[in-house]
C-alpha cells in the first residue's frame, strides 16, 4: 500500500539513522503535520525516496507523495475522501472509526476504574511482543514476519504480561501503583527498543514499516488489516454492550458486587481484555505511544457533558469516532500527516471544547452557576438591607413608616460590609428587574413588587435563623437557604411553629402570611 509513514522510511536506513529518526519523530508527533511543510534540508530522512518514487496507483492523496512540499488537496479529492467514494479510503476510514467507537467505550470503563495509565502500560508493553512475534515468524519463514494477526497476537501477550507485572509488583511488594506502572512501562518499552535495534540489523529487509507500531500509520493499513481491526472492534463493542451493567457495577462498587456473588475477578479480566484488545488494534493506526490517549481522552471529555454512565459511554464513543474519522480522513488527504497524531489531536480539541462548554461540569457552566448563585445571594442581601433600614426607622409607639420611603445608597452601604462596587452592581440589577426605582441620584425606593420581595426575603431569612436555633440537630440536612421560600423545603407544621416564634421576636411581622395578596392592593411593607 501507499502512504509509507516517515517512520518506515527512517528505520529502513538502518541503525545509522535510527537514533536521529527517533528524535525527529518525537518532534513530528508533537508538531504533527505542519513540520511536513519544512524544507528537505531540515528533514534529512526525507531524502529517501525509494518508495515515493514508485508510480503510485492510489487515486487519492497518494499522488502528492513524490514531492516534499505540503500541498492542499483539490476539492474533488476532499469530496472523494469525505464521502468515502474511493475503496481504499473507505476501508481505512471504516476500520479506524470502528476502532474509535470501541476505544471510547472501553476507555470509559478504564477511566472510571481509575486505571487510565494501565492503557499506557499495555501500549508500551506491546512493543517487545511485536518484536518477538516478528522474529519468531521471520525465523519460521523469512518474509512472513509482518503478518499482522501474528504481530498483534504477540502484542496482546506482551500487553497482558505488562499488565500482570504491574498488578504483581503492586500486590506482592510495598511498591505503590504509580511506581509499579512506571517500572513495567519503562522496562517493557526498553526491551522493545533493544529488540527493534536488533531487528534493524537483520539482513532480511522485511522489517520495514514495523516501527509504524510506535507512531501508527492509518493510511498504510491494507484491506486484510482493516478486516482484523474491524472484527476485533466489533467483538469488543458487543462485549461492552452485553456486560454494560456488570462493568458499571464493578467500577462503582467492587466490594458490593463481590458480596452479591458477581465473579469480580472474571468481570475485571474481561474488561482488561477489552482494553488490551483495543490497545492492540489501535497500535497499527495510532501507535503505541498515543493509544492511551485514544482510550482516555474521549471518556474524560464525555464526563463534562453528563452525569449518567450510559450517556457518558455513548458520548465517549461519539468523540472517539469523530477523532478517528478526522484523523484518518486528514491522513488520506495530506499524505504526510501521521494519522495517529491527528486522531489524538482531534480528540484533544474536543476535550478542550468539552472542558469549557461541557453542560454538566464544564468550566464555563460552573462559573456561570456560581455567578448566578452569588447574584441571588446579593439580591437577597439587598432586599434584606432595605427591609431592615425601613424597619429601623420605626419609632416605638408611633405609626410605622411608609414601606416605599426612600433609602440612600450610603445607608445601604453601611448596613453590611459589602464593597460599594458590588452593591452598585446589585442595585443596578434590582433597578433593571423593577424591584427598585431611582428617586434621584443614589436615592432609591422599593417598587410594589420590591416590597413583596423584601418582605419575603426578610421572613425567609428570619425563619431560617429561628429554625437553626430550634432544630440544630437536624438542621444541616434540611437547610437550603437558597430556596426561594422556606415553604418549599420545610413542612407546614414546622413553619407554623416557627411563625409563632417569629411573631414573638419581631411583632411587626404578621405570621402565617407568606405571600397573601397581589402586589397592587396589599398593605404596606411593615403594616
Amino acid at each position, binding site marked *: 500500500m501507499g502512504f509509507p509513514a516517515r517512520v518506515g522510511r527512517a528505520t529502513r536506513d538502518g541503525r545509522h539513522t535510527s537514533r536521529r529518526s527517533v528524535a525527529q519523530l518525537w518532534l513530528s508527533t508533537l508538531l504533527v503535520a505542519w513540520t511536513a511543510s519544512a524544507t528537505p534540508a531540515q528533514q534529512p530522512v526525507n531524502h529517501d525516496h525509494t518508495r515515493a518514487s514508485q508510480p503510485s496507483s492510489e487515486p487519492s492523496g497518494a499522488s502528492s507523495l513524490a514531492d516534499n512540499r505540503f500541498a492542499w488537496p483539490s476539492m474533488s479529492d476532499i469530496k472523494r475522501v469525505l464521502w468515502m467514494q474511493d475503496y481504499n479510503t473507505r476501508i481505512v476510514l471504516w476500520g479506524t472509526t470502528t476502532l474509535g467507537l470501541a476505544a471510547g467505550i472501553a476507555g470509559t470503563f478504564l477511566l*472510571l476504574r*481509575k486505571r487510565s495509565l494501565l492503557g499506557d502500560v499495555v501500549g508500551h508493553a506491546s512493543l517487545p511482543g511485536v518484536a518477538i512475534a516478528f522474529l519468531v515468524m521471520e525465523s519460521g519463514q523469512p518474509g512472513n514476519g509482518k503478518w499482522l494477526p501474528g504481530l498483534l497476537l504477540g502484542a496482546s501477550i506482551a500487553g497482558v504480561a505488562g499488565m500482570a507485572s504491574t498488578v504483581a509488583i503492586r500486590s506482592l511488594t510495598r511498591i505503590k501503583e504509580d511506581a509499579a506502572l512506571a517500572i513495567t512501562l519503562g522496562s517493557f518499552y526498553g526491551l522493545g527498543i533493544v529488540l527493534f535495534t536488533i531487528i534493524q540489523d537483520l539482513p532480511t529487509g522485511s522489517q520495514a514499516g514495523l516501527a509504524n507500531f510506535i507512531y501508527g500509520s492509518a493510511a498504510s493499513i491494507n484491506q486484510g488489516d482493516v478486516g482484523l481491526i474491524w472484527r476485533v472492534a466489533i467483538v469488543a463493542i458487543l462485549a461492552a454492550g*452485553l*456486560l454494560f*451493567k*456488570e462493568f*458499571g*457495577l464493578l*467500577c*462503582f*462498587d467492587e*466490594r*458490593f458486587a*463481590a*458480596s*452479591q*456473588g*458477581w465473579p469480580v475477578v472474571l468481570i475485571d479480566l474481561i474488561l482488561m481484555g477489552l482494553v488490551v484488545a483495543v490497545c492492540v488494534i489501535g497500535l497499527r493506526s495510532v501507535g503505541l505511544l498515543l493509544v492511551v490517549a485514544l482510550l482516555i481522552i474521549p471518556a474524560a471529555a464525555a*464526563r463534562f457533558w*453528563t*452525569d*449518567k*454512565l450510559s450517556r*457518558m459511554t455513548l458520548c465517549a464513543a461519539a468523540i472517539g469516532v469523530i477523532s478517528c474519522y478526522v484523523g484518518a480522513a486528514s491522513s488520506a488527504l495530506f499524505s504526510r500527516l501521521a494519522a495517529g497524531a491527528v486522531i489524538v489531536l482531534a480528540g484533544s480539541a474536543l476535550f478542550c471544547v468539552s472542558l469549557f462548554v461541557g453542560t454538566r461540569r464544564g468550566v464555563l457552566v460552573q462559573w456561570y452557576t456560581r455567578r448566578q448563585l452569588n447574584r441571588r445571594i446579593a439580591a437577597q442581601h439587598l432586599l434584606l438591607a432595605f427591609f431592615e433600614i425601613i424597619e429601623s426607622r420605626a419609632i416605638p409607639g408611633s405609626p410605622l413608616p411608609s414601606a416605599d420611603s426612600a433609602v440612600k445608597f450610603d445607608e445601604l452601604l453601611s448596613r453590611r460590609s459589602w464593597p460599594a462596587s458590588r452593591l452598585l452592581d446589585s442595585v443596578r440589577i434590582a433597578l433593571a428587574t423593577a424591584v427598585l426605582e431611582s428617586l434621584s441620584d443614589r436615592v432609591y425606593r422599593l417598587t410594589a413588587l420590591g416590597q413583596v420581595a423584601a418582605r419575603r426575603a426578610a421572613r425567609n431569612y428570619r425563619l431560617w435563623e429561628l429554625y437553626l436555633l430550634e432544630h440544630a*440537630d*437536624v438542621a*444541616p*440536612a*434540611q437547610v437550603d437557604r437558597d430556596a426561594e421560600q422556606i415553604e418549599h423545603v420545610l413542612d407546614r407544621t414546622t413553619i407554623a411553629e416557627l411563625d409563632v416564634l417569629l411573631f414573638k421576636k419581631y411583632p411587626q411581622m404578621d405570621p402565617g402570611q407568606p405571600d397573601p395578596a397581589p402586589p397592587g392592593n396589599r398593605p404596606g411593607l411593615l403594616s
Partner: protein
Amino acid sequence: MPPEPIAADASPAPPLSIHDMTVAYQRKPVIWDIDYLAPRGKLVAIVGPNGAGKSTLINAALELIPRASGRVRFFGEAYRRQRHRVGYVPQRESVDWDFPVNALDVVVMGLYRKIGWCLPVLRRHRKAALVALERVGMADYAHRQIRRLSGGQQQRVFLARALVQDADLYLMDEPFTGVDAATERAIVEILRELRSQGKTALVVHHDLQTVTEYFDEVMLLNMRLVATGPVDEVFTTENLRKTYGGRLMLLDHAGHAIAKGGS
C-alpha cells in the same frame, strides 16, 4: 418487646452461624475463634473499639476476604447458596461518590443479581428501586447525581440498595457513622420495620450511648468475642471493661447510657 418473628420459611436454621472463625491479614490474626449464632428477628449491634475486627467479621462472613479457618453458614447453608437472602450495606467511604450515576441507578444495582447476566434493567426494576428509596425518605432525590447528596443521604441510598433485595438478613457496616439526625432516625425506623417483618440485622455500631435504645442484642468484640446476648444482660460495665480496657471516661459514659436505658 418486638413482635414474634413471622415464620418466613419452615427451616429452623439461624440466619447466621459462625464456628471457629479466624481471619488474618498478612501474618497477623485480626479475629480468632469466633463462635456466634445470630438470633432470628432481632437487631444486633456489633460493638468494639477501633481495630477490633468488626468490619473484618462481616467481610469474612461474606467471603469478601479469605478466612484462615472456620465455618460460616447462612440459614444453614453456605453463603453461595443463600446470597439472595443476605443484604449488605458497606461503609459509605468504600466508593467514589463522583461516579456518573444517580441515586436510583445505585439502588437498582441491588437488583442486578436478580436481573442476571447481560440482561437490561427494566421499568419494573426501576419502580422497585423507587419504592426502596421512598422507604428511606429519598424518593425526591432519585434522579440526583450521587455526588450532590449529603453524607446522610448517601448512606440512605446504600440502605435502599440493600432493602430492594428484600433479604432476610442484613449486615450493615457502620451505617450511623457521620450521618445527620434525620438520617439516623430514618435508619432506626427501617431497622424496626425489618424486625417487625421477622428479619434480622447485624449492625456495626460505634455509639455506645444509643445501643440500648436501638438494639435488642449486642455482640461485644475485641479481636475475640467478649460477650453476646440480649442488651440488658450483656451490655454491662463489666463486659464493656473487658472489651474496651480501662478507658474509664468512655465507660462512665456508657454506664450512664445503660442506667438511662434501664430506667
